[in-house]
């Protein structure tokens, strides 16, 4: 007798970069190629194709909650889309048994010109509720969202927080047998986040199978009974949430290939100081990279510290200039010191190269994770008094500690 649940069995998913013919003019050559060329078997990669997921399998049974963690581009969203049948696997299969509630893009169906009330019915229908069911639960939904006063106002006048709260309230009232959640724990203010998390916890402890994708590692460990860690489309760790978080937090992952056209790339970031680092202490990091040839002095190393709990960036080194374009070609190492003026928890340090002329990150580098011990109440954005120094050069190249 089948029970509600999710099964992913030997799933592979192939994607292609670029080459989507966009206008009819491209159709004729594409058709000609298809007629002339041999049909490639589905599991052979053509040029510019890559496996977004390779051989992913897992089961989620009633009473279980699976956490999926991994860096951006690891395949988490692809996996959720496959489970939700928005895309289909190239090989293998996904199976969802039971009425599915997706807490993904919870206000995607809202139309800005319609009122909150009208949108509740629209969004409810989109996620699979019947009109009768929505009518019955309407008061509960509005009460949960906490926007009673604005329910007859067009949602274009809502703040993004109100939007998300109403969207979550609708999704949370769907009678579901299976729950799929993508990063919605980060909506609204802290009080609403707590309520939303409480609601998910309630559904999960009633035995509904849950798949949760999130960057909020601590929330994940409290909610989930097991976890998988994805990297490059593969499951690299499978086990308890704590084990996966530990692997995730300590591993150094390879960087993505964004910014491939640039003459430099960041290859690794490493935490030199022993983990965990006490709150308020300085931590030493080492960023490694390569430079093929000289580049204009507009490219700076950019580090961001993100809280794994809230998903928010608490500190950015923007404004502290440490150029990478004008280094001698070859491999380079940059030492970074940060003062961890943050509370206890897990933080990720994201690296990138910032183009100061365009004011945007042009090459995204690898991430590292920091564990900070001892709790002191720090909140919001903090100053970390950064110091950066190119290894091998006698004098610190640029040591600017803003605000100190």
């Amino acid at each position, binding site marked *: *007798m*089948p*029970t*509600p649940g999710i099964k992913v069995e030997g799933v592979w998913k*192939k*994607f292609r970069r670029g080459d*989507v*013919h*966009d*206008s*009819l*003019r*491209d*159709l004729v050559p594409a058709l000609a190629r298809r007629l002339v060329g041999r049909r*490639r078997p*589905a599991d052979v990669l053509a040029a510019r194709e890559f496996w977004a997921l390779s051989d992913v399998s897992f089961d989620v049974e009633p009473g279980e909650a699976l956490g999926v963690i991994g860096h951006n581009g690891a395949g988490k969203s692809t996996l959720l*889309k*496959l489970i*939700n*049948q*928005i*895309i*289909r*696997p*190239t*090989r*293998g*299969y*996904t*199976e*969802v*048994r*039971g*009425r*599915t509630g*997706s807490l*993904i*893009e919870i206000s*995607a*169906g809202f*139309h800005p*010109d*319609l009122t909150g009330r*009208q949108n509740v*019915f*629209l969004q409810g*229908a*989109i*996620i*699979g509720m*019947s*009109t009768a069911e929505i009518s019955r639960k309407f008061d509960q939904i509005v009460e949960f969202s906490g926007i009673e006063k604005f329910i007859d106002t067009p949602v274009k006048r809502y703040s993004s927080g109100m939007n998300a709260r109403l969207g979550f309230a609708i999704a949370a009232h769907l009678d579901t*047998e299976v729950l799929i959640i993508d990063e919605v724990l980060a909506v609204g203010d802290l009080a609403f986040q707590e309520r939303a998390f409480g609601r998910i916890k309630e559904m999960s402890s009633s035995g509904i199978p849950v798949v949760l994708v999130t960057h909020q590692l601590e929330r994940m460990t409290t909610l989930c009974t097991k976890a998988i860690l994805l990297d490059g489309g593969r499951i690299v760790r499978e086990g308890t949430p704590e084990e996966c978080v530990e692997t995730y937090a300590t591993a150094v992952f390879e960087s993505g290939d964004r910014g491939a056209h640039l003459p430099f790339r960041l290859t690794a970031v490493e935490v030199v100081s022993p983990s965990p680092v006490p709150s308020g202490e300085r931590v030493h990091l080492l960023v490694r990279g390569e430079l093929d040839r000289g580049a204009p002095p507009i490219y700076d190393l950019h580090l961001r510290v993100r809280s794994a709990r809230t998903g928010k960036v608490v500190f950015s080194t923007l404004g502290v200039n440490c150029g990478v374009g004008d280094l001698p070609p070859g491999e380079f190492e940059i030492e970074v010191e940060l003062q961890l003026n943050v509370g206890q928890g897990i933080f990720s340090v994201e690296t990138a190269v910032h183009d100061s002329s365009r004011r945007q990150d042009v090459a995204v580098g690898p991430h590292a994770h920091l564990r900070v011990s001892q709790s002191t109440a720090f909140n919001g954005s903090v100053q970390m008094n950064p110091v950066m120094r190119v290894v091998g050069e006698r004098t610190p190249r640029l040591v600017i500690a803003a605000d100190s």
Partner: protein
Amino acid sequence: MSPLTDTMPSITPAAGGGRLLVRRSTAERRSWAGELALAVREVWESRELVGQLVLRDVRVRYHQAVMGFAWALFMPLLIVLSGTLVRVAMATVSGNALAPQVLGSTAVKGIMWAFFAGALGTGTQSLLANKQLFTKLYFPREVLPLAAVLAQCVDTAIGGTALALLLPFLGGALTPALLWVPLLVALMFVFTLGVCLFTSCANLFFRDVKYIVQVLLTFGIFLTPVFFEPVMLGPVGGRLLMLSPISPMIEGMRLVVIEGHDLLRPLVVANAKGVEVLSWTPWYLLYSAAWALGGLAVSMRIFRRSAVVFAEYA
């Protein structure tokens, strides 16, 4: 479009006694018939979603528009006025008096054309315009073009009601032939839906399809008997004009509403030169119905087959 795949839901009894919906998604294809049956079932199960989407489109169209519901009358009215102008010009050139029923004929045919053109306009864009929905959430994608065509039906119903009230003054008569109206309306709906399913999905893969559709609609009005009767083109031209799948629907509507003609009987009329020309044969109806039903089946299949990669292309 290499990984063509399929979803295979099946219902099995759940442990709790209720029914447990099992959806399995693999890279396998299913048969044409199975595909169509699945599409029909899924759309039927999503009928309340279709209702909400139609409500959204209608509300958004009328809520903030300056002209409000008058908008629904504006397009057909414009077509009728242009049609009347064309007929006045023809009457002037030929020296014959303008037949009194011309206004009624143009109005009946104009409203049919306005439906087709309006539905095709919004229907073609219906997928791309709702990209944020189908790239994030699962529901049968057919509901998007279906809702667009149904929203156009609301417009046409308003225009049609207004026209029905005016028809007694425009040459319309209450005859048993009016029983054909529902069938012609249904054929028009089915054909338009089929075309919209195809164009909406083509427009997703090739962004210039909507411009091509606009161009075809601009000139298509002259390739269908909206402004004139097929007999005016003579025996050969008239038949050629009826080759357009919607021509028999439009011309049939005029014959039924204005002439009170029973569509099961052929109609031969003498044109201005006194030549006898075949104006109608029941085969036209069959021809049109074949286009409507066959077109819907083919485009549903194309739509289903490509729907599995919509989210990857959008």
